């Protein structure tokens, strides 16, 4: 075997090492959601808000604090700065008739149905027109940008699912600059989170399997006899491409399974003039 061939095999070894690491990461993302599902098995209870004590009759709310930036081309790109969950307090009547009093300031994640339109969101270019649009674009071109807050709130009559509000849930940990919520974190949700978590856990773990299958296909092509022939070249090239693509796929998986309170919202607004031109 020549040195070149030995290095090619070494490269294949590193390709597999990193494929397994990426698959393990995707799998772990799914495992995290499954741990949450296990925690919810005893203690996730549905109910309805019968008294909301927060300002504007709000029981709980979720805010996405954003900043919009533009390079003056009539588009504003919104970047999420912070995700804030707040419980403002009230009374919830559970499905079994029990009423529980939730104090203001109770630490809990607020989950809102993904895809729901939020207050403050400009979903079409006609939400903002004329001088307002021009002012917004002008401000977005400045260093401070254009602040915006997207808000979803749960008030009187809202259907909710609660977990862990009767106990002091563990606070999120901060490791190396990144916050990680404990699977036993308290929760106020506007929808049943279990199907969401189960579906996303399944997708993350299927992705992990898909990573390994893709790597296997490239390796098979690369090693197909005669080794280092034309198919081998194709397989090796595919391995280099797939190696880089898997990293992007892992990011897609991680973003996809982020729990709703920290799910990336972003947003792009185009001024009416830039849309019509």
């Amino acid at each position, binding site marked *: 075997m020549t*040195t070149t061939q030995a290095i090619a095999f070494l490269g294949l070894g590193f390709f597999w090492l990193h494929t397994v*690491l990426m698959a393990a990461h995707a799998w772990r993302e799914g495992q995290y959601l499954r741990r949450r599902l296990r925690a919810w098995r005893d203690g996730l209870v549905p109910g309805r808000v019968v008294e909301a004590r927060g300002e504007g009759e709000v029981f709980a709310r979720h805010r996405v604090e954003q*900043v919009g930036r533009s390079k003056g081309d009539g588009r504003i790109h919104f970047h999420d700065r912070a995700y804030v969950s707040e419980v403002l307090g009230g009374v919830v009547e559970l499905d079994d008739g029990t009423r529980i009093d939730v104090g203001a300031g109770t630490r809990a994640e607020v989950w809102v149905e993904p895809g729901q339109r939020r207050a403050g969101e400009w979903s079409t270019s006609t939400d903002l027109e004329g001088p307002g649009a021009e002012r917004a674009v002008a401000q977005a071109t400045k260093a401070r940008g254009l602040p915006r807050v997207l808000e979803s709130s749960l008030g009187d009559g809202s259907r909710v699912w609660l977990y862990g509000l009767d106990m002091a849930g563990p606070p999120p940990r901060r490791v190396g600059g990144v916050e990680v919520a404990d699977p036993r974190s308290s929760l106020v949700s506007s929808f049943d989170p279990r199907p969401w978590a189960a579906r996303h856990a399944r997708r993350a773990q299927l992705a992990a399997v898909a990573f390994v299958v893709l790597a296997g296909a490239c390796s098979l092509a690369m090693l197909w006899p005669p080794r280092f022939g034309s198919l081998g070249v194709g397989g*090796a090239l595919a391995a280099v491409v797939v190696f880089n693509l*898997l*990293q*992007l796929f892992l990011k897609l998986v991680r973003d996809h399974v982020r729990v709703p309170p920290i799910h990336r919202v972003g947003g792009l607004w185009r001024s009416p003039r830039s849309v019509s031109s």
Partner: protein
Amino acid sequence: MKVVANEARAREPWLVRRREEWRQVGIVATYLALLLTPVFWAPARHPAVFVAACYFSFLNAVVIHNHLHKGVFHAKGLNRAFRFVLSFGALYPASANVPAHNLVHHHFGDDGQPDWAAPGHVQFRWHLLNLLHFPNVVGPNTFTGVKRWADVSRHPGFALQYNAETAVAFALTGALMTVDFWAALAFVVIPQLYGARSILRINLIQHDGCDTTSSWNHSRNFVGRAFNWIMCNNGLHTIHHNRAGLHWADLWDAHEREVASRIDPRLQERSMLSYLLRTYALRFEREAPVDGDRIESSEDVAVLPSTRERLAAAEASAIAEVP
């Protein structure tokens, strides 16, 4: 006045801004020779050449870091051209460093969100896996982050330069693959990827277990003299963050003057190799982080320019290098 200016210009070294820059030019020239020779000359296809190419690929990425902070050459055109050379060496566009490193990383955050290269992006219990896996996560974070930055950047030349560097890097590498595919894969592509991924890994090595909210204990330093000679003082990371506008050749004096007596001794390692062995091979889990607030005195903090001024210095030097 004109005489003084002429005399000052006459004292400047030829072509490069500082005499020390020839070291970086030499590193890149050596690296290119190691990359290209095996493709065209079979006797150079030797394990030692491969290992040397991987090592110099990492040094090439270090040069990218320094060059994107402060250009090597007097002439802007030459600096821009050098970026193409560096980009080929790393198989990624060198200009990516402007938003990724000079702006986001020096802020230790992305406008309220974590630094694209924050150590916490990897959280395996077995810490060695974090070291190996780190570039797999941080690479795409950087790629998507740079794209978002380019969408709103008011420097029209950035996107053109970035895309051009990408095209040149891939085109040259592709061309070499048509000369001899397996030689190019083994002796060009693998070293390129090694260097690019290693420089991402350095973020973990330099900041894991540190307190990025603190004034002095936010970075780990490697203070071996020989190490810093070949690494162009990139082992001195605290002073680099605190005085981002300082040229790399001036970091050693500044480190000894300002940093050495102020930071936790655990953040001054003599040898990177022994640190890596101790932290990743001989230890299973992550170490407990340093608590900067507990260690730093108000006098220590007062010595520095304010956080706002330091970030402004980092931004100013970053933007100066954007086309």
